[in-house]
């Protein structure tokens, strides 16, 4: 049975940084070349010369090794006027692409890994929140997530309880909506786009669409890079490297509800590239 993940869209380059010489990279173990061919045009080709479908969205170039049955997922907020779109850049991580997404969906690690920024002891409790798999959209959603944060964003001055929503629209992509300190009632959008190089190696391309008129663009980039780099040593030291779809060697609790829903959704769709099927 071929993995249906082959038909999904994946980020393979930052559009603003892609030139005519392009870049050689890997997608699910296959060497590919991505290069700019015009002011708004990009070509992606496999090693044998086969050209791959391309989309340019959310600051990134997207392609697929298979035949995508669905258009690249929509992030409506990306087109809202007044938002600042932030290309955060790429970071390579020696872990399963699925583990990178799962970690992004996790809040319980904030006090220990993002200490004094996204969380701090003694505020470690994860309160009940809602998780659902939206059938029409075929996406995982976690809503009514709340967590106390000493410095939730670059624009946050002090500690506040931050509201979150998480969305998984594709097996290696996640969109996070969080309270936007300068504009109560609006949500900042922070995404994690993951390029699966192999089942145990990935390139992570964070991207943001923020309401923040004050902060310097570089500050915004640095803040998000700082957060993600605090996670990197965790991701590279989880055993096994692949994401277990059988939790027999783990102990998920209610705080891991989003992780469980994400893994269930992967399992239902047979999205197993980067997954470990049997607990060992």
């Amino acid at each position, binding site marked *: 049975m071929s993995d249906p993940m082959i038909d999904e869209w994946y980020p393979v380059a*930052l559009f603003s940084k892609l030139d005519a010489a392009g870049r050689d990279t890997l997608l699910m173990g296959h060497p590919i070349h991505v290069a700019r061919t015009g002011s708004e045009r990009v070509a992606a080709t496999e090693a044998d010369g086969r050209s791959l479908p391309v989309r340019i969205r959310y600051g990134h170039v997207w392609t697929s090794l298979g035949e995508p049955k669905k258009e690249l997922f929509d992030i409506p907020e990306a087109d809202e006027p007044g938002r600042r779109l932030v290309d955060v850049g790429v970071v390579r991580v020696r872990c399963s692409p699925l583990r990178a997404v799962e970690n992004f969906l996790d809040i319980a690690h904030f006090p220990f890994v993002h200490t004094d920024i996204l969380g701090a002891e003694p505020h470690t409790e994860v309160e009940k929140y809602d998780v659902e798999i939206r059938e029409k959209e075929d996406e995982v959603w976690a809503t009514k997530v709340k967590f106390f944060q000493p410095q939730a964003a670059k624009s946050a001055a002090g500690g506040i309880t931050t509201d979150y929503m998480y969305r998984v629209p594709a097996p290696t992509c996640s969109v996070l909506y969080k309270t936007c300190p300068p504009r109560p009632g609006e949500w900042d959008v922070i995404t994690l786009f993951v390029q699966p190089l192999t089942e145990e190696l990935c*390139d992570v391309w964070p991207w943001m669409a923020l309401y923040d008129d004050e902060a310097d663009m570089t500050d915004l980039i640095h803040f998000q890079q700082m957060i993600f780099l605090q996670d990197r040593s965790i991701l590279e030291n989880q055993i096994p490297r692949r994401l277990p779809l059988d939790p027999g060697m783990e102990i998920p609790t209610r705080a891991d509800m989003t992780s469980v829903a994400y893994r269930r959704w992967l399992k239902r769709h047979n999205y197993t590239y980067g997954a470990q099927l049997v607990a060992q």
Partner: protein
Amino acid sequence: MKLYDYILSPSCYKVRLLAALTGTQLTLRPVDFHPGGEHLSPALLALNPAGSIPILEDGELVLTESSAMLVYIAAKAAPEWLGSGDPAESAQIQQWLSFSHRLTASLGGARLVEMLLRPGDLAALQASGVKALRELEAALAVQRMKGDIFLTGSKPTVADIACFPYVALAPDGSIALDPYPSIRLWLRAVRALDGFIEMPGIHRLHELKPEPAKETA
């Protein structure tokens, strides 16, 4: 003092760290090193033709080498970080400052390849990184036999700060620190210093804080 800074740069972090440890105020000017490549922009090349960061400005003075910045900050704010003035000790501090450039080239090079996808011969960088770590481990083992924990004695100096970041972040370049017990204790001693600050990839020493008491309902 104004520091042209990048949050993920261990060399910039050296300067931020010593400033924090000595109570020196820095004005940070973030540089979009990755993905923007701003360090190679005309404005920054005019300040530092080498195209590297950090850059430290203090009035007319412009410094472009992190070791020089450490010496400058220590001399201005906390001369004890330059050692006691004993000739042998001063020379050893200089030797470790020079050694730190080998760490930047090897461990730092491997990290740039592994983490930020910069071109480079990863296996060669890792091999020279391991060689440097073994040299450091051997030296620290001898220091411990003498009853000292830091590179040149019982007190930390700019030598320790110059070597600390790239060593602590060696795993970012897929170089394990597991085989180095003396390095591990030295890293911990630096991290436990009063006023220590972290950078991404170096976690908080949570053990220094007591377990939070259970909130009573």
